[in-house]
């Protein structure tokens, strides 16, 4: 393309003052003919020269030969050019010969057409090599960039200064819910983004800002695409460059729906967590104040209040522990110490320690353990905390006079620990949610027992950390069974 355009450039044709090749050959032959005619004429008319006739023939022949030589010399450059061209023409058929060797070569001669040929070749080669090489490099860059733009997982849109879409990435069309890029081309991006000029002041501000001369504008949009609400962060920059070239705007759309959800979840968590912290803290302060400031408090009251302070302090400590553990586990930064553990003594101790609180509520706490249990690999403190929590829950949510049973059996590769109570039970629709952080069932809320809704989330995280699981079977009115399964020998994730 480029080569052609180069060659077809109008060039000043230099009119050569020298005779053309045909003229020169013609003149050579004319001179020869004239020579021959004059010799013939002389030999016929001048009798005295008759004896010299053989000599004249020799001269005539010499004339002819000379003319031939002159012609040959004249066309020699042409012949060279011809042979070069022929060589080149033959290259297509003779594929065995290296192509490079067969390109027309420069020729050396005194003839002006030689100069012309050489110059032509120079031009052709210059076109074939230098400028096309630049063009190829440009092409390469442009092609790579274009491919990168298409391949980038970024929703970019290039518009003109009026926000009319000129180019749009597939990601952006997907975000905007369009069929393909042609569906968006030429449309007003502000409309696609739902920034409408509908008299709403905030909308108008957005619109003015986006179409204004500010170099970079960031805004957030909420967009409903085929029934789904998505949240977008839109960054638009004005395309720089010399005046008049490539004026327009580049837009990047980021789908921040997920991020937004995460932020909201975090805020929600923080709010709930602070609430959960404030409640025991508030109690501590209130009871302490009651003891300190109220005069004439009888001993029984004082003792009761101190007890409350004690349990509330414990509750706060447990909450801090659980919360830290759960968030650490969620962040994946939990440090787990793995040792070979015999669960039996832990469980026996657990049941023993909980006899007193159970007895306070006239609850029968029974246990059923085999004589020997295989070991598990795990973190003693964390497992202990989880088990304490489960047995505590069972006692807490079982009404006075009920029963709580802890039993352990070995099932295939698992140690199964059941905590069965005769409590209020958990309705089916709540069963999947009791393991959520801060979720408290209706019954739990109705009960007078304080709770923070983090214990079960904590216990399940611990079970999972040990490659185990915590599950629940329950029916309203008959009670619940929480089952913790731990793998024998601890098929731990880290391969210990």
């Amino acid at each position, binding site marked *: 393309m480029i080569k052609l355009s180069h060659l077809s450039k109008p060039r000043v044709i230099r009119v050569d003052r020298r005779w053309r090749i045909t003229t020169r050959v013609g003149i050579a032959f004319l001179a020869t003919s004239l020579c021959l005619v004059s010799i013939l004429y002389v030999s016929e008319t001048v009798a005295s020269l008759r004896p010299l006739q053989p000599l004249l023939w020799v001269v005539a022949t010499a004339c002819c030969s000379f003319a031939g030589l002159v012609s040959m010399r004249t066309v020699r450059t042409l012949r060279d050019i011809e042979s070069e061209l022929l060589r080149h023409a033959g290259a297509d058929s003779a594929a065995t010969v290296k192509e490079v060797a067969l390109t027309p070569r420069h020729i050396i001669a005194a003839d002006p057409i030689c100069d012309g040929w050489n110059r032509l070749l120079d031009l052709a080669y210059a076109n074939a090599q230098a400028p096309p090489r630049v063009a190829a490099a440009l092409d390469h860059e442009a092609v790579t960039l274009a491919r990168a733009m298409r391949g980038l997982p970024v929703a970019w849109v290039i518009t003109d200064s009026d926000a009319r879409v000129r180019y749009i990435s597939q990601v952006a069309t997907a975000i905007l819910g369009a069929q393909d890029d042609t569906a968006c081309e030429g449309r007003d991006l502000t409309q696609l983004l739902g920034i409408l000029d509908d008299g709403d002041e905030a909308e108008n501000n957005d619109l003015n800002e986006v179409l204004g*001369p500010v170099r*970079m*504008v960031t805004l957030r949009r909420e967009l409903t695409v085929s029934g789904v609400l998505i949240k977008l962060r839109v960054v638009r920059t004005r395309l720089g460059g010399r005046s008049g070239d490539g004026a327009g705007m580049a837009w990047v759309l980021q789908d921040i729906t997920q991020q937004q959800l995460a932020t909201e979840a975090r805020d929600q968590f923080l709010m709930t967590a602070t609430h959960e912290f404030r409640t025991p803290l508030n109690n501590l302060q209130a009871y302490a104040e009651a003891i300190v400031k109220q005069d004439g408090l009888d001993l029984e009251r004082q003792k009761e209040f101190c007890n409350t302070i004690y349990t509330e302090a414990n509750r706060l400590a447990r909450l801090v522990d659980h919360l830290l553990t759960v968030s650490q586990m969620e962040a994946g930064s939990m440090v787990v110490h793995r040792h070979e553990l015999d669960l039996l003594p832990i469980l026996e101790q657990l049941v023993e320690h909980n006899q007193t609180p159970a007895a306070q509520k006239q609850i029968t706490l029974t246990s059923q353990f085999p004589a020997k249990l295989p070991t598990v690999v795990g973190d003693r403190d964390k497992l202990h905390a989880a088990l304490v929590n489960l047995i505590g829950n069972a006692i807490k949510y079982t009404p006075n006079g009920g029963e709580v049973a802890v039993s352990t059996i070995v099932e295939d590769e698992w140690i199964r620990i059941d905590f069965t109570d005769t409590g209020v039970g958990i309705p089916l629709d709540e069963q999947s949610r009791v393991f959520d952080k801060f979720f408290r069932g209706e019954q739990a809320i109705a009960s007078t027992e304080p709770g923070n809704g983090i214990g079960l989330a904590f216990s399940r995280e611990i079970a999972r950390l040990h490659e185990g699981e915590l599950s629940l079977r329950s029916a309203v009115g008959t009670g619940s069974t929480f089952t913790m399964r731990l793998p024998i020998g601890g098929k731990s994730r880290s391969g210990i």
Partner: protein
Amino acid sequence: MTSIDRRGGVTVIRPDQPLQRSTVEALAVDVANATRVGLPLVVLDLTETPLIDSAGLEWLLDLDEQCGGGGGCVCLCAANELCRDILRITGVGATLRHFDDLTEALGSFA
């Protein structure tokens, strides 16, 4: 002393003197140093800036150009009445976003 601090990813510059020929050069150097690392997102807090002269305006545009080249931008906040008028009349205000207070300006980058 002009305070320059980093709020998250945003550089907040709060000059305590007019943006004018005599002050702008030193400021430019400080700001250039402060925005060398990371995305150059700059908020220029004009609370304590009584006046902007032509050199100051020029610097603002240069700074925006520079930051724009690095993928960031400059926005202004809390300019007084006079500065606002100067920005509006010279048209410089049209190319730089202005916010009423710092919180709002920082929020615009969120």
